[in-house]
């Protein structure tokens, strides 16, 4: 089976590096993007197995990205996690309404990230 691929979207270079290093070390293929718009550009007509996106980003934020992905047939069922620093109900509700699969609060360590991914991407 082909390598699982994950789209990681974050405007912070250090977060992006940490996330993709963690994922790549665990055998995932990673597409990095700096914001929602960049993510759409980078995706093109590719498919990924999971999307991890920051919420607050310039140009296009995470929730807008999720909405844009969910209207596309190929992303209807793709798990999408919002990585966010706030875990307020307001945010959760907005994330859920946009079509996110779940959320994860920053900061997290690599082990936690892999643990959560393990839950959404069963072997």
């Amino acid at each position: 089976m082909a390598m699982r691929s994950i789209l990681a979207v974050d405007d912070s270079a250090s977060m992006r590096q940490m996330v993709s290093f963690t994922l790549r070390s665990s055998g995932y293929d990673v597409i990095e993007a700096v914001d929602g718009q960049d993510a759409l550009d980078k995706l093109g007509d590719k498919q990924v197995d999971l999307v991890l996106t920051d919420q607050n980003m310039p140009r296009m934020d995470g929730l807008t990205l999720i909405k844009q992905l969910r209207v596309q047939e190929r992303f209807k069922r793709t798990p999408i996690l919002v990585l966010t620093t706030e875990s307020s109900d307001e945010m959760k509700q907005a994330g859920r309404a946009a079509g996110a699969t779940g959320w994860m609060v920053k900061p997290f360590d690599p082990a936690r990230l892999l643990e959560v991914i393990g839950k959404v991407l069963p072997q």
Partner: protein
Amino acid sequence: MSETQSQDNGGAFDLSQFHGVFFEEAGENLANMETLLLELDVDSADDEALNAIFRCAHSIKGGAATFGFQDVADLTHVMETLLDKLRRHELTATIGMVDTLLESGDVLRHLLSRHQAGAAEHEALDCSELVARIGALAHGSAAAAPVPPSAPAPAAAVVAAPVAVPALPEPVLAEGERLIELAIGPLERPDTADHLAELFTEIPGLGRIEATDGGQADAEGMRRFRVITSTPDSDLLDLFSFHVDREQVRLGAPAAAAAPAASPAPAAPAAPAPKAAAVENADYGFFVDLPSEAAPAASATAATAPAAAPAPKPAAKAGDRPATGATALESTSIRVPIEKVDQLINLVGELVITQAMLAQTGQALDPVVHQGMATGLTDLERNTRMLQEAVMAIRMIPMAVVFNRFPRMLRDLAGKLGKQVELQTIGEDTELDKGLIEKITDPLTHLVRNAADHGIEMPEVRIAAGKPALGTVTLAAAHQGGSIVIEVRDDGRGLNRDKLLKKAIERGLPVSDQMTDQEVYGLIFEPGFSTAAEVTDVSGRGVGMDVVKRNIASLGGSVEIDSTEGRGMRVSVRLPLTLAIMDGMSVGVAEETYIVPLASVVESIHLSAGDIKSVGGTGRVVEVRNEYLPLLALDELFAVPRKEPVSGGIMIVVEAEGGRIALIVDELIGQHQVVVKNLEANYRKVPGVSGATILGDGQVALILDVSWLVRRARH
């Protein structure tokens, strides 16, 4: 549900490998935030700008928390809270907020540099006063008076505001502790939950627990508690499972508590209300049941979120289509450690020398016989020069990097001095070598500060003089030939020739009425010369201007002053574009070759013994175009051994620091670019010599320090 087995490989990651990127990124965010804050129009704050400022703080916070810089995370957290309210228009921006945020930026920069330097935890700075002040601003107390450092606000602010439990006092969290909202149920017997609470009294160190529901289950049979603990969630869950089923326990962040209590009965699954998530944890959660969960997925999905609909089944077919070309981030720029660039420059320098040697050797060959070789050498020369320029360009960065610090500085200064000053910058895109940029920053800072302090008058003085109350300091940069000229201009009071002369006489400096304006203005660069009637704490006592000049001279640059009394003053700093390569004129003195920086050469003239006049005991001068210039013989100065005495020779008129002298040499060899090698790094500082280079024939030639020579000959 089954707890995921711990991932051993996850714990092995060394997060410190990302610190470098984080520090750079945080630095950029801080600079960006400062620029945006300075540009922010407080009276009609632009949403886009507020969002951008918020994002800067937000981004620093996220990284700092991830990489374990707690003090940075704590401070940015309260900043973020304040900025969030601003961008949501829950608060209106004030000058005081901008000031406090700018101050916070300074503190953050400080904290970050300490972490970068590897400061130990116990040396942590106390920012609690600042944190409390920002917290007060965020909570709408306009005064935001400094709060005593003992105030408990910072600790509480670090945790999401515990508004959810108004009935209970704000918890005080010790280090490492966190606040969790615990929901248990639905329970047939609500008092089962009390067994859980007893665990906290039975097991020392587990933490504290308080019921937030007054001991009563709600309509759903849920019991709610607030837990303050440092025990990991997984351990808590393990303990709780002795009394209740795992599925009946929900651990959540404190802010989440308010809504479930208010949410409607579970009979309305389609309602968008935040019904408890399928899986909920303190730091992550899913809106839908995942494949590994037992419960059916469909009912958990809100009708308002059609896209979120079916439970993801990624294992099915999605993975079969390989993601092609999923590779690293494509970017238009890369970060490279400066050492790598310097190494490249060094190597190109060596290549330039090798090329010069080959060219020299090639000249001895018959071009007809060795035509191919000659063509090759010509190509090599051209390519070497292009390579050199391209490599040097890597180190070039725009002056904006320096200019950007001044709006903030002038703003603070003007506030302190009670003056109105605006900064204009011209030519921020002009590029300069990184090494020079770093070294020119301090001198420029001094000049700008001086312009605001001594140049720009108080508003009432300006108005009385018929000038606008708002003074202008202009920073302009432009390339001129192989140099960059940076001007610091102000439209202030300007310099008064007579006052300067009078003061110079008081200080016992050698002056005369015949001195040109330029020379008189240059007096302010003399050590200890101050023009301000009174000493201010901004520009100090005039010490510094001489340092400014010396620093600029040490970079191979020069500084000139021009002024019109009552109209302002202009200080022009001229610098070479790079320190690594310069245009030089090579001159022969007996068997030695010296390099004179071409920028300082005015002219060269044949010298006959009759032109030289002796002055005093040992001094000699020469008349050049009705001007007597001090004469310096390089062979005498450097004690160059000579087999036979020469008569006549050539003199080169050089100029530095506004003064001219003539140097006697035997011959002019030629002009070429030389790769500057630091003499101090390889040998030691030699007076009169600024560096060394290797010539085409492999010989080492010393590069003359013309400023030093001029000073020596004229004083």
